[in-house]
């Protein structure tokens, strides 16, 4: 769990270390935009902007969705992915608890037998 958080923070800080990418986040904070819009706004080639958006996407700061021929970018994780990751964390927590509870139940059963 801690490793997961650390890896995510590393990716986030790496993504934020670049002025253009910070600008893109600021821009997307105002409104969703296509990669073409962003490339125009930051006077870059499409390929260059795609790379920046890719880094932001990897860090979970931006999500993109292709509709027809246009790829739209917006802030944030895809909600479903975020939810799935969270539920998996919960499952791991409960699984760890329940493994320990198995042991407690076993001990209690054994003690009852001795007392009988």
């Amino acid at each position, binding site marked *: 769990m801690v490793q997961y958080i650390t890896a995510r923070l590393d990716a986030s800080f790496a993504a934020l270390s670049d002025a253009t990418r910070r600008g893109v986040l600021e821009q997307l904070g105002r409104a969703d935009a296509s990669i073409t819009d962003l490339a125009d706004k930051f006077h870059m080639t499409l390929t260059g902007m795609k790379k920046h958006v890719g880094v932001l996407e990897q860090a979970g700061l931006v999500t993109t969705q292709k509709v027809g021929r246009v790829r739209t970018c917006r802030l944030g994780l895809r909600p479903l992915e975020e939810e799935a990751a969270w*539920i998996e964390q919960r499952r791991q927590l409960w699984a760890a608890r329940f493994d320990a509870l198995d042991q407690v139940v076993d001990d209690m059963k054994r003690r009852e037998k001795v007392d009988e």
Partner: protein
Amino acid sequence: MNSRTTVERTSERELVATRTFDGPARIVFEAWTKPELIMRWWAPKSFGISFLSCETDARTGGAYRFVFGHAASEQPMAFFGRYIEVTPPSRLVWTNEEDEDGAVTTVTFQENGGKTLVVVHDLYPSKEALDGAIASGSTGGWPEQFEQLDDLLVAQGC
């Protein structure tokens, strides 16, 4: 393994965890209500969490308070609330009051052939409350409730 743990979001406001235990409901229920037993399993070591104290007044209307330490934090976290229903050995309902968007947790114990199916059902006050828990969920399912050492701990000399 037949003792697999499942966790599912069953509606906009509900989260359900299940597991079957190899023992009668009477015993499993006891392990959910007695502090000395809860302390042996509720805070998994693999999550870096350890109990500082555990108090339960497992009666309808009674209070509970769990205080944990975490390797990654100097401040302990407290989980507390009230038991709304305590029906041994089949049903336990409590509130989670460390957070105003806290869920109401209902745990049922269904015995069948010497085994007990445990269902942990969290009902959040709204869709937004559960969505919010998910959005801030990087703590691995623990509410981000880090509290100052409180009077309780001071009183216990921890």
